């Protein structure tokens, strides 16, 4: 393969990759979507036709080069085509989180000055219509699903299929223009603009060029030898960089097939039916799946349960070694084979992992037990570390060097350095161009030599060269006695318990640490059912004394484990409370990618934080909540605050002095 700085074989844009795929993989499946209970299939050449029709249709609507086009909806082939069609006409696709509220959308639409919006259905159309008054540059909307929209004013509203029809009708007239625009695309033209979820402050528009996306896709595909034969399930938000790389970048680079679920709720069934060979999920998905398996095993017959426990214990012992190709004695190997036949195989099939060759998890730390569980089953689950600004990949774990506590070695083409304060910096061809209309932030994040600050503190492990992430650099602080405070470290330990969904630890500048805990309704609810504990609401269950007791045990166990680390022993949780509501992105407490917004939570629940420190045994609080339809309401509760046992840490303090 000839390789130049200007792309491989002149493939310098996603539309160019599409045209290559349409000839090279013409009859191979490019997209599948389950509809009316049947998997519908589109080959690469059909895909190219659909995208051409839409591109021409966009030209008939008067789209200009450089326009921004927002794309809102769940993962559907049509919306992926929309992204490439927008690129083909020289415009820039901006995928948005489909669960964002109208106001959140208004900010992004206004910031990028989107002239066109391509929306999936009535729900999304309504949101944009609610805010369109304030959007000076917004002109036209295209919708996919006509349901409920028939009677809307169609002056600026166009149905997706009709736009394609118009495009097909204008084929001979507009094809030269489409070709001209496609050929004008080069390695430096903008491929996509993705808004960061914004753990702090307003979202920022990350501009990624064709070079960023294609080089990253090429490197990462080669790293894991991805081929055109892979199948992936596209179910993560289209606005998230990971989905863009996996379902678009790598898919177009290698020509593999992207499968879209029938609906959000059918994802697990569709996963099983498709049996992807390459799979990505944030830790939370793996946790949920494991919780479901464990709950179901609790309900299984004693015989099945014994068999499951027996073989899972064996898998834990030898599974990871067998996966990594380390020597394992013959008897154990045989027993593992038997286990595979009786337990692991059927279990993997149920989970939809029968064919997974490479699985990745990222975004958050994954619990070692959870990670080992999947690996012991023979699923090649690995970790990667990345961010939007890097077009995902910064580090990833090569086959055979997989551990739960590192995030791997630098990805091909990525340079890494650790600053004096421990912050991780990287530089690669995937490094973003700029933050749109925000030169100041761009300069803060990316230095003139191209090094980008990740905002995470970490170190490179000696000997293996693997990167270990400690925490968000800005979250790492000192406590009032100068001891190191790394909230994430403690939170992750807490979250590894199935009963705990989310934890927020406070302690910066204070004399001791305290925590908010969110229970996991599935796990705790199941436990309650088993123990005949009646509850009417999340709030009631969260406040149940026996639930608090269980959580207290977890907190105390975590304290013991935290105390073992001389650097972080000060981070033991002295007092905690179980929150009366689940932290939610709709209330601004989490980002759309489900990351905790520490500062906002601290401000919003200031009364609770104060109560944690002033020694009061309980606190009455009222909290505003946002319902899914955007309306607001108040919930009130009296929360019990509990003290947790801590391990004395005098010895380490002396050592620190």
């Amino acid at each position, binding site marked *: 393969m000839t390789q130049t700085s200007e792309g491989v074989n002149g493939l310098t844009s996603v539309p160019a990759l599409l045209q290559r795929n349409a000839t090279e993989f013409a009859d191979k499946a490019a997209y599948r979507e389950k*509809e*009316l*209970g049947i998997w519908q299939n589109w080959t690469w050449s059909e895909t190219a036709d659909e995208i051409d029709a839409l591109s021409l249709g966009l030209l008939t609507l008067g789209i200009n080069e450089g326009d921004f086009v927002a794309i809102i909806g769940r993962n559907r082939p049509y919306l992926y085509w929309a992204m490439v069609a927008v690129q083909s006409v020289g415009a820039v696709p901006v995928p948005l989180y489909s669960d964002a509220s109208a106001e959140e959308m208004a900010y992004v639409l206004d910031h990028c000055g989107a002239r066109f919006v391509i929306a999936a259905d009535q729900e999304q159309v309504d949101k944009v219509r609610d805010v369109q008054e304030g959007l000076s540059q917004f002109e036209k909307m295209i919708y996919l699903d006509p349901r*409920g929209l028939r*009677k809307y004013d169609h002056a600026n509203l166009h149905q997706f299929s009709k736009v394609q029809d118009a495009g097909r009708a204008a084929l001979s007239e507009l094809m030269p223009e489409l070709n001209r625009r496609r050929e004008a695309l080069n390695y430096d033209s903008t491929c996509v603009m993705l808004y960061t979820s914004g753990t702090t402050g307003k979202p920022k528009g990350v501009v990624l060029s064709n070079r960023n996306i294609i080089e990253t896709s090429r490197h990462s595909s080669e790293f894991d030898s991805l081929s055109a034969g892979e199948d992936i399930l596209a179910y993560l938000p289209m606005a998230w960089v990971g989905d863009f790389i996996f379902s678009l970048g790598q898919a177009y680079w290698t020509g593999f097939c992207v499968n879209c679920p029938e609906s959000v709720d059918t994802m697990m*069934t569709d996963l099983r039916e498709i049996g992807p060979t390459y799979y990505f999920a944030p830790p939370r998905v793996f946790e949920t799946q494991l919780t479901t398996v464990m709950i179901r095993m609790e309900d299984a017959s004693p015989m099945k349960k014994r068999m499951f426990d027996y073989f899972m214990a064996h898998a834990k012992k030898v599974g990871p070694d067998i996966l990594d190709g380390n020597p394992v004695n013959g008897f154990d190997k045989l027993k593992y084979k038997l286990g595979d036949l009786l337990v692991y195989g059927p279990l993997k099939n149920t989970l939809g992992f029968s064919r997974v060759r490479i699985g990745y998890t990222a975004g958050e730390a994954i619990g070692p037990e959870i990670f080992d569980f999947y690996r012991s089953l023979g699923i090649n689950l690995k970790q990667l570390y990345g961010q939007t600004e890097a077009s995902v990949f910064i580090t990833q774990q090569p086959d055979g060097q997989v551990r739960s506590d590192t995030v791997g070695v630098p990805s091909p083409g990525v340079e890494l350095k650790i600053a004096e304060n421990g912050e991780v910096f990287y530089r690669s061809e995937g490094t973003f161009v700029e933050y749109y209309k925000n030169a100041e932030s761009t300069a803060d994040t990316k230095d003139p030599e191209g090094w980008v600050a990740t905002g995470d503190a970490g170190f490179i492990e000696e000997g293996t060269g693997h990167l270990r992430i400690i925490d968000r650099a800005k979250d790492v602080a000192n406590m009032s006695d100068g001891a190191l405070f790394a909230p994430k470290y403690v939170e992750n330990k807490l979250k590894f318990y199935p009963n705990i969904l989310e934890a927020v630890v406070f302690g910066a500048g204070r004399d001791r640490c305290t925590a908010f805990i969110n229970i996991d309704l599935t796990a705790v609810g199941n436990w309650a059912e088993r123990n005949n504990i009646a509850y009417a609401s999340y709030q009631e269950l969260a406040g149940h004394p026996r639930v608090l007791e269980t959580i207290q045990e977890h907190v105390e166990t975590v304290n013991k484990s935290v105390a073992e680390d001389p650097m972080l022993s000060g981070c033991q949780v002295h007092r905690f409370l179980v929150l009366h509501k689940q932290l939610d992105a709709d209330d601004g407490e989490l980002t759309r990618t489900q990351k905790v917004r520490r500062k906002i939570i601290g401000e919003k629940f200031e009364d609770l934080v104060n109560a944690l420190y002033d020694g009061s045994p309980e606190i009455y609080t009222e909290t505003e909540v946002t319902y899914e339809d955007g309306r607001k309401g108040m919930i009130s509760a009296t929360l019990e605050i509990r003290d947790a046992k801590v391990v004395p840490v005098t010895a380490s303090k002396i050592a620190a002095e």
Partner: protein
Amino acid sequence: MLDNSESYVTEDGRTIGGVVMEMKNITLRFGGVVAIKDISFDIREGEIRAIIGPNGAGKSSMLNVISGFYVPQEGEVLFHGKPRPQLRPYEVAQQGIARTFQNIALFEGMTVLDNVMTGRLNKMSSGLLAQAIWRGKAEKEEIENREKAEKIIDFLEIQHIRKTPVSRLPYGLKKRVELARALVSEPSILLLDEPMAGMNVEEKEDMSRFILDVNDEFGTTIALIEHDMGVVMDLSDRVVVMDYGKKIGDGTPSDIRNNQAVIDAYLGVAHD
């Protein structure tokens, strides 16, 4: 009053057609108990018509009269202007009337898909033998029916429970499955008996949206009984109010809101 055959356009731009069904001086007795006393009202094509009233007002009895399950002792039901003879349930279905029940009447042991497919039974004409060997017409019919069923499943967003036995579903979803089964027979009139009873706010909102969408997408005429005044006022074009078997109000939601008899029936009156 409008002329029976005249159509009009509602505020939200929907066209409501002429009268499809007319109840004329209906009286229904069970032994000595008078459930419905001399009630008349009509249902127009394409409208959402609600029947409301306090407990025991005779709403469900009224719906059973409309569906032809009960035959009133006095009065008559005109369907498309003609008096309707006494019908067997399947004949009612053949006339394009479908219903759901207050106390959910699904086949609990069957999957959602199978339950929905039963709604297509009266559209099948292939014989028992043909269906047993699944050849020719039977196969074609089944494919056609499955497609219709899948469209409704998609419409009501119950794809994720397609293969789940109904007995394992929560109440709100069962209600939706029942609506799916009624819809799949492509009715021209849909009767809903307390479609939102026992639901939480979110489920009620979902159901309201589905009812509006059904009316909008398929042009189905809908007659529904409901307790929740808020829901009724938001959904329906016209409302009949019953109390102790009598009609005490009939009109648009805003008429009903200002009707003194209705207010008294709901809030009670001081007896002094």
